[in-house]
């Protein structure tokens, strides 16, 4: 996988306390994925536990004593800046870091972490978010859904769900959990695992999603929709429109993701709430998930597909 822009690829692994993040990461490393990656483990507690489990990583750093999304934010930014610095300085690392796997603490909200990286004047040029994987506890997940508003913020940031401990979970509860994930983040792929290895999930068809703990969060239904960018809508039109949309509705437009063809090449565009990541130019033929070019997915609430289409149409050149 060659990258055009030379930025470090970052994979975030989130999920509630005890949801199986470290087990999943350890298995990925064991299988040879993320080989050569720098693994950063963030512990909210002072006592590092996870780093013992993750001894298989080629390189590893520990961020203890605070969540990277709040109290540990400065420490995380400092660590990442140091990684970038060593990578670009002559006589720095013998094998520069090209990939980072950041396991967040179980109490972290991935949204502010993405924002911290996107708003840092150094990191924004050196680090690109590849994917946010959110681990969901197959056994205890439903109770967290009902009781923890934080769980929902984690779930809304996901590009991919990994439902853990599938072998020990009640099949009915699992179906309900999968249905709940689909209602929180529609269209986000869901995989089952046992000790990090893939395991089949039951079909959630007809299962009732669990009511969510709101904790001051919005209860309106979340919609996933796709807009096709037609020939009247070039990159400039789309970018102007999206900047206006996120300015006005950034709290409601939870995720935007898609690949758009522009004069500069194929741009991978993604946002988490108001933060749009500096778009990455993809090589021709490189597949970014299952999305087709010039199709952009929107996940959010308080708007309809028709509204988006109509609004974008008003920005585009008249027919």
């Amino acid at each position, binding site marked *: 996988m060659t990258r055009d822009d030379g930025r470090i690829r970052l994979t975030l692994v989130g999920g509630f306390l005890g949801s199986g993040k470290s087990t999943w990461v350890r298995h990925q490393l064991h299988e040879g994925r993320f080989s050569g990656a720098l693994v950063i483990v963030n512990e909210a507690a002072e006592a590092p536990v996870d780093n013992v489990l993750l001894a298989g990583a080629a390189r590893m750093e520990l961020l203890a004593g605070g969540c990277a999304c709040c109290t540990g934010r400065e420490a995380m930014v400092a660590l990442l800046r140091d990684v970038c610095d060593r990578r670009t300085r002559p006589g720095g690392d013998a094998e520069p870091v090209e990939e980072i796997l950041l396991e967040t603490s179980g109490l972290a909200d991935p949204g502010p972490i993405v924002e911290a990286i996107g708003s840092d004047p150094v990191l924004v040029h050196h680090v690109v978010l590849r994917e946010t994987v959110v681990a969901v506890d197959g056994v205890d997940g439903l109770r967290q859904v009902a009781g923890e508003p934080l769980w929902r913020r984690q779930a809304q940031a996901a590009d991919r769900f990994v439902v853990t401990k599938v072998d020990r979970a009640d099949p009915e509860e699992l179906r309900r959990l999968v249905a709940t994930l689909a209602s929180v983040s529609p269209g986000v792929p869901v995989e089952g695992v046992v000790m990090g290895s893939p395991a089949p999930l039951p079909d959630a068809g007809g299962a009732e999603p669990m009511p969510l703990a709101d904790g001051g969060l919005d209860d309106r239904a979340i919609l996933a929709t796709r807009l096709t960018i037609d020939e009247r809508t070039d990159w*400039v039109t789309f970018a*102007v429109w999206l900047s206006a949309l996120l300015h*006005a509705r950034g709290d409601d437009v939870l995720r935007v993701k898609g690949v*758009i063809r522009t004069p500069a090449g194929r741009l991978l565009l993604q946002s988490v709430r108001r933060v749009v990541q500096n*778009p990455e130019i993809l090589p021709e033929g490189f597949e970014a998930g299952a999305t087709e070019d010039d199709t952009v997915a929107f996940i959010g609430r308080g708007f309809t597909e028709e509204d988006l289409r109509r609004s974008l149409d008003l920005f585009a050149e008249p027919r």
Partner: protein
Amino acid sequence: MCSNCGFPSAPGHWTDAGAPPGTDRVRARHRRAAVLGRVLPAWGLTVTDDTFIPGLTVSTRTGMHRMVADLGEFWTAAEDLSGRRIDPLDPDFLRRGR
């Protein structure tokens, strides 16, 4: 960055990513002004971008104006000048005919 005034201070808003530097970038700035010019009258505003100096200028019909570096600052400045919230999903805006 402009070597005289140091504007804009931060490199690259994400919306600038779609055009490589050079003539394409100038063309993209003309296009950007054209797109904004289509929709801003709905909020009583106009935009100018001469492409010789960095940034673009948003103005009211009475001549109040503000210069901004990029689209990241643009909408806040435009809302300040018009005194209204600029929401592209505003039902009044969506009802506008062509």
